[in-house]
């Protein structure tokens, strides 16, 4: 395994309308590891994944995957590049008109000419890995949230990608499916030698599986390091986020005038 990072993000700038989302983000994602990207809600973590996947184009800066600039590819080359990546969406994003089996078979059917029997074997292998071989005939609408995410994970792995992007894999899961997902991500990463990027704000779960963590806030990388390093970080902003303290450098109160004067000067205004 070489030491060059698999994904490199350099000086990334991106804005939506007037709102600046990233102001110079630099990341280096090592090969074969789980890298977590964390940060408070609304810091554009999902946007970052879409930039890495080439679905959005940055205003400045570049994203290199295995040395190739994602945003300098032709449409065709970009689609070819994406076959080497899998992405797990927050909602699962299963195709609602296809069964579980067909959802997992979809990437195989469109990108390979494999015979039916082999596709069946591959799909059953992937479903077995996420423990849902028995649910293959169900439709996405019949699945629970956690099951849908596991099917989506099986689909993301169908073409044996080198890179998997996880968008908030733990949000809205009950403790059991949360534990299952944490296990799965860790195990798949080790067994298949994948490079994983996990975007999340679930501190506890993410820190247990991540090898390296980037914390993003206000459009920049606020801190990065190993989970242990962040846990004992002296930076008050990092420690507020990692330990989930309600008040600190990120204030509890939305900016407002002084409470005392606000109460006294009602004068019929709101």
């Amino acid at each position: 395994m070489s030491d060059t990072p698999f994904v490199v993000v350099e000086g990334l700038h991106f804005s939506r309308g007037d709102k600046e989302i990233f102001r110079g983000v630099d990341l280096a994602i090592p090969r074969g590891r789980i890298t977590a990207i964390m940060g408070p809600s609304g810091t554009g973590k999902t946007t970052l994944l879409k930039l890495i996947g080439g679905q959005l184009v940055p205003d400045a800066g570049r994203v290199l995957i295995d040395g190739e600039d994602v945003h300098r590819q032709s449409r065709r080359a970009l689609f070819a590049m994406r076959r080497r990546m899998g992405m797990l969406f927050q909602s699962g994003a299963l195709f609602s008109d296809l069964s579980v089996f067909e959802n997992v078979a979809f990437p195989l059917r469109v990108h390979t000419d494999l015979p039916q029997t082999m596709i069946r074997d591959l799909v059953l292998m992937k479903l077995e890995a996420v423990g849902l071989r028995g649910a293959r005939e169900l439709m996405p609408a019949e699945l629970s949230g956690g099951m849908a995410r596991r099917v989506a994970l099986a689909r993301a792995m169908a073409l044996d990608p080198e890179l998997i992007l996880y968008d908030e894999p733990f949000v809205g899961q009950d403790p059991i499916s949360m534990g299952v997902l944490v296990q799965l991500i860790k195990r798949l990463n080790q067994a298949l030698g994948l490079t994983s990027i996990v975007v999340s704000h679930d501190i506890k779960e993410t820190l247990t599986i991540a090898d390296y963590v980037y914390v993003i806030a206000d459009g920049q990388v606020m801190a990065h390091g190993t989970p242990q390093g962040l846990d004992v970080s002296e930076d008050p902003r990092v420690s507020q986020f990692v330990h989930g303290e309600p008040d600190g450098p990120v204030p509890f109160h939305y900016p407002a005038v002084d409470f005392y004067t606000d109460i006294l000067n009602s004068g019929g205004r709101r």
Partner: protein
Amino acid sequence: MIEQITSLGRRGCELLESLGRAGIFVAQSAVGVPSREGWHLWLRQMHFVGVLSLAIVLVSGLFIGMVLALQGYTLLVDFGAEQALGQMVALSLLRELAPVVAALLFAGRAGSALTAEIGLMKATEQLSSMEMIGVDPLRRVVAPRLWAGFVSLPLLTIGFSVVGIYGGYLVGVEWLGVFEGSYWGNMQASVSFIGDVGNGMIKSLVFALVVTWIAVFQGYDLVPTSEGISRATTRTVVYSSLAVLGLDFVLTAIMFGGLT
């Protein structure tokens, strides 16, 4: 004052930009080599877009033909010209009513469904995930729907005309007692295949393109929330109805207005 002018300018730029996006969008989806799988996807959409619109289009066609015959008869009979009923029904249907009414019904029935369906796929990230799997949603989702709409509306329009003419026959001949020979005979003598049937079909092809394009683009370009979907669905019906009626006038002026 200056502000109003700037906002007018901005509106204009936004309109041009969205027209440009829609143009690129349709070019990217419609062009491409049809594969065997594309054929299957297209057939599936023909069912959803075309076959499922059949009932409303045919029933409306029947009633419009019947009403035409009834109204026409009461007018023509005063001049002793009720023999011309067949000609009147056929010409009104073929030239105007079938292409326009079928397109309006199609926009309401199929167009709004297309917008909502594609919008929902966008809101649930299905389009994004398809992109990340390395499948172009323009080819896979949009193109079959675009082509299905483009092919099925002209076919529905033919059905509308046929049923409408039959409805006119039911009322005019069977009920009001117009001589059957003159109903069909006058129709045959006065309807020109290229001038009336052909021009009606050209109208229908234009409407099919415009209505499906609007529907599919509105679905693809909407704000991916439930509110965004409901707004886009409304916009589809409003824009396509206005476009159909406006274009109908332009096309009629060119085809039958003696402008050329």
